[in-house]
């Protein structure tokens, strides 16, 4: 395995909300009453069923409760052994699935307050992402602005499959706020299930949904680039989280070819898609979806023609690798340093 180095930044760890009732202390009287009176159940997304093998590594799975719900486990499994300087918490609790913008806003607010109090307050290495109620752009911006004064929030978090493609103009106030407040926007695998989870309809299986995340990221990159998000907000960084990485170059070759062919349709795209990606888009390392041989690995990174695209992640507690093998075999030491330290710091201005 490639040698890990101390002081790295883990850009994708997942603290779990034990149950919807865990958020009750962070809800207003009205919403507390709604949850209890209506008998609402735990918001677990089909993207990550609790017992699915991808949801937790066997040796990271606790005897009771959800994987990733205890800080002590996260410390013991990743923060300490990987000698991390920071880890960015991306809660995947299923708040995006509800359809009421009021309920979604209340749950997001509670989730963000829960994260600050029960995680960020308890370990100084942890940083957080602001989960936003995308059903209402106005409420999403308000939530970003409410959380932003706490500098431990280093990112805004959205799901890769929501109600609309992410480049759509209606969402731009979110990107304006994020750019203004030095917050990259993290796009994480997962669906609100407001649309079929593939572009060709509903599949039958959990495995199909998980494989399909990569295709969802691809369509979102197209949308973000051709709608002109980065022409309008050139300082905005976006991070594709748990996206997979081996598809990046061939996808960009295709996008670049079509952009050259039909750029008259989107004349506001003022730079080549390849350039936009190199300056504004980053990808988390895990799941590293390539075969475990060094020759292929070297070709894949060479195809990217940049050593700045990839950010270290363990994707804790998801099962992407075994033991300490968070880095794929054969990465040269310079690239390891870029991936583990330099690239994350260059991406997240609040990471100090």
């Amino acid at each position, binding site marked *: 395995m490639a040698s890990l180095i101390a002081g790295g930044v883990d850009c994708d760890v997942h603290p779990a909300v034990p149950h919807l009732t865990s958020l009750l202390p962070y809800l207003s009287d009205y919403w507390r009453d709604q949850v209890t009176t209506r008998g609402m159940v735990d918001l677990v997304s089909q993207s990550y069923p609790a017992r699915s093998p991808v949801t937790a590594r066997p040796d990271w799975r606790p005897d009771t409760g959800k994987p990733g719900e205890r800080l002590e486990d996260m410390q013991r499994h990743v923060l300490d052994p990987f000698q991390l300087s920071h880890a960015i918490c991306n809660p995947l609790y299923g708040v995006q699935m509800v359809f009421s913008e009021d309920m979604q806003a209340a749950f997001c607010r509670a989730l963000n307050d829960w994260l600050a109090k029960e995680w960020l307050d308890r370990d100084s290495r942890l940083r957080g992402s602001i989960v936003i109620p995308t059903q209402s752009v106005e409420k999403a911006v308000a939530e970003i602005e409410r959380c932003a004064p706490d500098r431990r929030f280093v990112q805004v978090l959205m799901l890769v499959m929501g109600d609309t493609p992410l480049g759509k103009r209606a969402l731009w106030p979110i990107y304006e706020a994020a750019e203004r407040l030095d917050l990259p926007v993290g796009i994480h695998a997962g669906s609100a299930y407001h649309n079929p989870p593939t572009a*060709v309809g509903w599949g039958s299986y959990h495995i199909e949904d998980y494989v399909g995340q990569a295709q969802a990221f691809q369509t979102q990159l197209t949308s973000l680039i051709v709608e002109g998000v980065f022409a309008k907000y050139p300082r905005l960084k976006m991070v594709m989280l748990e996206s997979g990485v081996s598809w990046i170059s061939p996808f960009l070759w295709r996008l670049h070819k079509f952009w050259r062919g039909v750029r008259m349709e989107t004349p506001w795209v003022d730079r080549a898609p390849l350039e936009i990606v190199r300056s504004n888009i980053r990808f988390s390392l895990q799941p590293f979806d390539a075969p475990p041989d060094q020759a292929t690995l070297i070709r894949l990174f060479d195809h990217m023609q940049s050593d700045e695209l990839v950010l270290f992640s363990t994707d804790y507690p998801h099962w992407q690798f075994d033991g300490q093998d968070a880095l794929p075999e054969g990465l040269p030491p310079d690239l390891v340093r870029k991936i583990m330290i330099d690239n994350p710091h260059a991406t997240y201005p609040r990471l100090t």
Partner: protein
Amino acid sequence: MNIQFREGTEAASPVTAKTAIADCDIHPARATRTELYPYLAKRWQHHLEVYGVHAYQGMMEGPPYPKAQPNASRRDAYPPEGGPQGSSLSFMQQQLLDPNNVQLGVLNPLNTGQGIRNHELSAALCSAINDWQIDKWTSKDKRLKASIVVGNEDGLSAAAEIRERAGDKNFVQVLLLSRNVEPLGQRRYWPIYQAAEEAGLPVGVHAFGFGGNPITPSGWPSYYIEEMVGHSQCQQSALASLVLEGVFERFPKLKMVMIEAGFGWAPSLAWRLDKVWQRLRSEVPHVKRPPSEYIREQVWWTTQPMEDPERREDLFDVIEWIGWDRLLFATDYPHWDYDEPSRVLPAGVSEANREAFYLGNARKLYGMS
């Protein structure tokens, strides 16, 4: 990698006879609106006149994402005698088949009976287009071979159409589109695969079609370029479905051709499927082998539109990972994003690989060798 770099491969003079090629994606068009009527019952002629075609999208005419060119076709491809691009055999011979020495041209008619909500009309239109392909094209030029177009949402009637055409040497494959009501691995489509396997015909899956689903998993995008780039994602999801529903396991002699959606994505998808299958295989016990094995054995790709890296030799890595024996050259004539045969492969490809890419793989797959 074992690519030999040679100098001077592009230097052939234009007067030299060109090496024979196969073109595995040619789009024949109707010259007039009513050209299919002789092949349709009176009832359906009436239906088309009064109600038109209701696809799984709202437009009565034309595509929901306007193309970049009229009919998405080359402006120099209008036949001199009139009609839309791709509607004249003599002009196709003159512009495509003769100058490029096309020895095998596979016809993939679009805008037929596929992806429409009235399944009886769908079957009637598909049958008509199949008769029309013989009368207008394959019977008049032996280089051209037809695809059996089938009503995609009704597996049983589609299978009947395949069985009716099986053994007819005018046809070399069954044609489906990538976007359907459900992902292509679903059971409703299995009769099509069963009939194709029995008939010994590959199933081509061409980009496009409508099935009523938003064309991204996060809703409807805004632009034509998103639809075009997105065909590769639709194709990936369709192929993942075929693997994960066990279609290749159940129909081990079935051959699938991914048409006009690129191929650069194929290695990454296969790796991802393998990795996730190792974790989650207990959910899909009918998928007995690593997904990449089914893909390597039972899937082919047409080349156009070729991915276009800044360093063109990067594409060789991807082709090595897929296999030089799995790519089928295609121009997409007469569409605007046509790939010119003499320019798509950079210098440095071995003679054997070049021959397989341009002709040999297609002849073998389509039973012409």
